[in-house]
């Protein structure tokens, strides 16, 4: 099953990189969202993939009876999901605000902070 997951992660990364290479912010934003999910799947696959075996220890035992799903990657993903979701929300609002204020969502035209034809520094005085 790992091979299929690896392939899926690869597809996610491809889509994310393709979207992030766009010059329109909204597509970059979608790319960021896909990228976050690609990483989550990657960590999930990097843990251990086991179906339908909950990591529950029986009452009279001290360790797990057999192989079970690894709980730690899921805890890591949970953290990463919360963080990437909050970032996505922030960037979404920021993009909307940028579109509203700068009247463009084309990154080539967003040159307020770095104007195209700035004067060169004087050579003497």
């Amino acid at each position, binding site marked *: 099953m790992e091979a299929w997951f690896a392939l899926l992660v690869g597809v996610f990364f491809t889509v994310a990189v393709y979207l992030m290479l766009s010059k329109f912010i909204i597509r970059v934003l979608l790319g960021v969202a896909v990228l976050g999910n690609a990483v989550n799947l*990657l960590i999930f696959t*990097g*843990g251990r993939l086991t179906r339908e075996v909950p990591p529950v220890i029986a009452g009279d035992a001290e360790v797990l009876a057999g192989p079970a799903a690894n709980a730690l990657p899921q805890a890591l993903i949970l*953290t990463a999901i919360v963080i990437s979701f909050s970032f996505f929300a922030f960037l979404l609002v920021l993009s909307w605000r940028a579109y509203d204020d700068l009247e463009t969502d084309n990154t080539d035209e967003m040159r307020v902070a770095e104007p195209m034809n700035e*004067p060169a520094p004087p050579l003497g*005085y």
Partner: protein
Amino acid sequence: MAASTAPSVDLSAALVLAPPTAAEWLVVLPVAWCLTLGALLVMMRRNIGLHPAITIVGLTGLVGIDALLLLEIMRNGPMTMVMGRWLPPFGIAFTADLTGALFALVAALVALAAGIFSIADINDSGRRYGFYPLLMVLMAGVSGAFLTGDIFNLYVWFEVLLISSFGLLVLGSEHEQIDGTVKYGFLNLVATTLFLVATGYLYAIFGTLNMADIARKAEGLRSSAPLMTLAGLYTLAFGMKAAAFPVNFWLPASYHTPRVVVSALFAGLLTKVGIYALIRVMVMLFPVEREEMSLLLAVAGSLTMIVGVLGALAQSDFRRLLGFLVIAGIGSILAGIAVGGPGGIGGAIFYALHSMLVMTALYFASGIAMRLGASASIVTLAGLYRRHVGFAALSLMLCFAVSGLPPFSGFWPKVMLVKAALDIGAWWLAAVLLLAGFLTTIATGRLFLLAYWRDGAAAVGETAPLPASTLGPLAALTLLTLVLGLYPEPLLATIQEAAAGLADPSAYGESVFPEGWPQ
């Protein structure tokens, strides 16, 4: 849970049962202190008049805590505190060694200076939008990143400081700031995501996230696991954070847009957190891979230096010029990491600490210059020397310091780096380091000539009085660089010890696993 129902399990194998000593609390106190004060300031959002006073008292406390922590580590070696009493590698450990504590202390000093400078720089709307709570949360993230001993935890602290830096960057909501934040936000998010990718692979390979545990296991896995890929991914992620060539273009796009005090804080802290993480991962966890990648790191460092100084020469805006100087400094630190050994790593740490102080002070100077001359462009700024002699003198000292001229703090790390590069026969790297220093001198010299020395329309005005809250932090930081330049021995000795601790992390490991390494 009632203890009587589970008598057969021996908790001492997984839990720390002894209560932590008072000294151990110092390891987590910087983070807890900043988060508590940040929360307090958020609760007092209707009472913004009290914000600056509480922040300055809080940051003074943070400096005190970090100084105590450093003293304690100098006396007793690295210290560890585990969260929720779970022993590593299961529990998250906060481990402070000399490197982390040194960085945390200088970061706290920089933040305190910025806190004082902000009294005159942040107006009421900035306070209402939460400058001070964001500053405290930023410091929590920075301190956490310097003191944590767990690599996923490092990722979390990176995110904490990143989200607060977004907030600080858009403070004011001007068009320029929104433009800068879009570029800063997206590129930094990609960098942290790369960091998370690398951490996912790291967990898949090692099955642990504790840095001391990884450092021990790396030796055994070197023949079978793709550690070079991991080291490469980490270098790319942290290089992007630190604005190393060729992934540096978000920095000059965004660092000149926010309030001056925010620029100063970012220049002092954020790229240096990336550099610290790079040193920690490459030197302590993957020393063999660092050795193999040293040529790549050296080339990236050289190009970063060259791009930085050439960019600085081409700018006419005071603050954008400084942004490129931040990049040039990062190049020197990368060169030190590439060279390795006590001279290279020690030089890199010293240069990073020096750069934190000097770049923050230079951004303060740019803010004061903009206040005095009502412009940020060196085409129109003129006659600052006439208007305020003391300020001009402090600025000239900082220009010397950032160029690496004696008797200021930039001189010693430069000497260490050049000597370390020559010792391993990398004469070209030494040449680039010296050339970058020379071109920086030209860039800052021209800045001083045009903006301060030249007579102009702005010089006609009378000597303008400056508020003590802006000149004070500038003078304090400049004095500190002068003291470190004239009397570097204590810091040099500490840094040599810190570099030795990174090269041989056995003391670090013993503090995490006092019972010996788990099998």
